[in-house]
């Protein structure tokens, strides 16, 4: 292993260049021969799509790398929108490569379907366990009198990668509409299925912010703002956008034109316009429709 210095430096350099060059050449030839022998016909689209992708091989799409994702796209297994770091830009390019119309994935936003906060919805017992909705839910069916209502222990908050949801001062999760990407992680995290994703579409429509399918009597005992299935809104709606689903009024936001008729007839004030969701918990009483309704009710 001792380096002998009997050859002079110039010769040494030439040796180095020649030997390394030759080794490289031999391997190069070998490889190109192998590539000929083992040539696989690759769908030319795969290559094109691969070029459009960011090429970070990050694996966020669920495939091993960008090439695998490209193959899956060509096979039609995944939507071009599957490349998360690429974003809409990549999606457009991909769609162009594939000659497809961009399947407009409609942006959605998470919405919590419960407004029974600490004051409005009664507790059954004092829960002193782990701060986890799923755990609390398993413990005698949750500490809230309402078996459908939000427990407010924040599983949705912890699971959100964008910090778009937080527990407000009233003990209910509030979605930051601007920050929410509609990824749907909170939807899965909620043990009571209170969160749904709705199409963003300029926040149009009214919603019944309750998920209880209990009878009206049971609901009103447990929560002062739950849907009591009185059907008043169904009758009041001029566009027939409201339907009853197992003792719960549900508004079809595609049909709803924000006339607000339902808000004023709802005795427990469960219906809100979607635009009012973020701030509604702070100043429920200040909203004109709501104020009128509560006067009517009392």
């Amino acid at each position, binding site marked *: 292993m001792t*380096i002998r210095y009997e050859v002079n430096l110039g010769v*040494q350099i030439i040796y180095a260049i020649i030997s*390394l060059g030759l080794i490289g050449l031999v391997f*190069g030839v070998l490889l190109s021969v192998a590539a000929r022998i*083992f040539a696989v016909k690759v769908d030319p689209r795969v290559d094109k799509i691969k070029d459009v992708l960011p090429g970070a091989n990050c694996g966020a799409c669920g495939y091993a790398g960008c090439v695998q994702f490209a193959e899956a796209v060509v096979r039609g297994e995944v939507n071009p929108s599957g490349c998360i770091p690429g974003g809409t830009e990549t999606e457009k390019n991909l769609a162009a490569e594939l000659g497809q119309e961009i399947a407009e994935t409609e942006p959605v936003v998470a919405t919590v379907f419960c407004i029974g906060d600490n004051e409005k919805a009664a507790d059954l017992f004092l829960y002193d366990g782990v701060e986890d909705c799923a755990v609390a839910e398993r413990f005698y069916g949750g500490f809230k009198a309402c078996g459908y209502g939000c427990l407010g222990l924040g599983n949705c908050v912890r699971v959100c990668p964008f910090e778009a949801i937080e527990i407000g001062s009233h003990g209910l999760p509030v979605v930051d509409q601007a920050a929410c990407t509609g990824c749907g992680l909170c939807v899965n995290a909620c043990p009571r299925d209170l969160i749904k994703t709705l199409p963003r579409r300029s926040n149009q429509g009214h919603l019944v912010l309750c998920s209880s399918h209990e009878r009206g009597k049971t609901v009103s005992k447990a929560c002062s703002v739950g849907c009591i299935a009185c059907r008043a809104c169904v009758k009041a709606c001029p566009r027939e956008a409201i339907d009853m689903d197992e003792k719960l009024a549900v508004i079809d936001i595609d049909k709803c034109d924000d006339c607000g008729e339902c808000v004023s007839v709802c005795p427990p004030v469960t219906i809100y316009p979607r635009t009012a969701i973020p701030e509604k918990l702070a100043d429920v009483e200040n909203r004109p429709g709501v104020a009128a309704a509560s006067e009517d009710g009392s």
Partner: protein
Amino acid sequence: METLLSIIFIYILVDNFVLQRFFGICPFLGVSRKMETAIGMSMAVIFVMTMATLVTWLLYTFVLDRFNLQYLQIVTFILVIASLVQLVETTLRKISPTLYQGLGIFLPLITTNCAIMAVALLAVREEFAFIEAVVFGVAASLGFSLALVIMAGIRERLELANIPDVLQGSAVTLITAGILSLAFQGFRGMLTL
């Protein structure tokens, strides 16, 4: 013969490349999720490592050492390993597309698997004879495969086990790897060259 047998024993069990020397941890953790890919990866590594040791030994002895170019060994070895990996990749793609898919990004990553470079360099440093070097390459890659297959077996069972939330995912994998390494510590000092 005795030397060859002890090389095999040492580099499979006593001085296991993954569990004792901590080479090649990336594929060890990356492709040990399923037994099938683990075995495929093992085969690829066995081939690449054996061939790499063979070729690098020949190149070192007959080219680099002859012309006093020892300082070029790392560059040359990288060239050899990269070419071999490329060869395996092209071949595998044709012969077994399923395995090619399963190995995914880890196949080209064999290039950067430090275990392979380590074998090539150690074969030179230990001044092995040709046969010894080749056997060393085989043994080291078998050791790698053993570790990978054991790990895959454990992880397949872990999938079904009831693991506490805090430990799920990479946490339990790393702990398992650590315990496995500790277990192999039992072979320590059993045999030396």
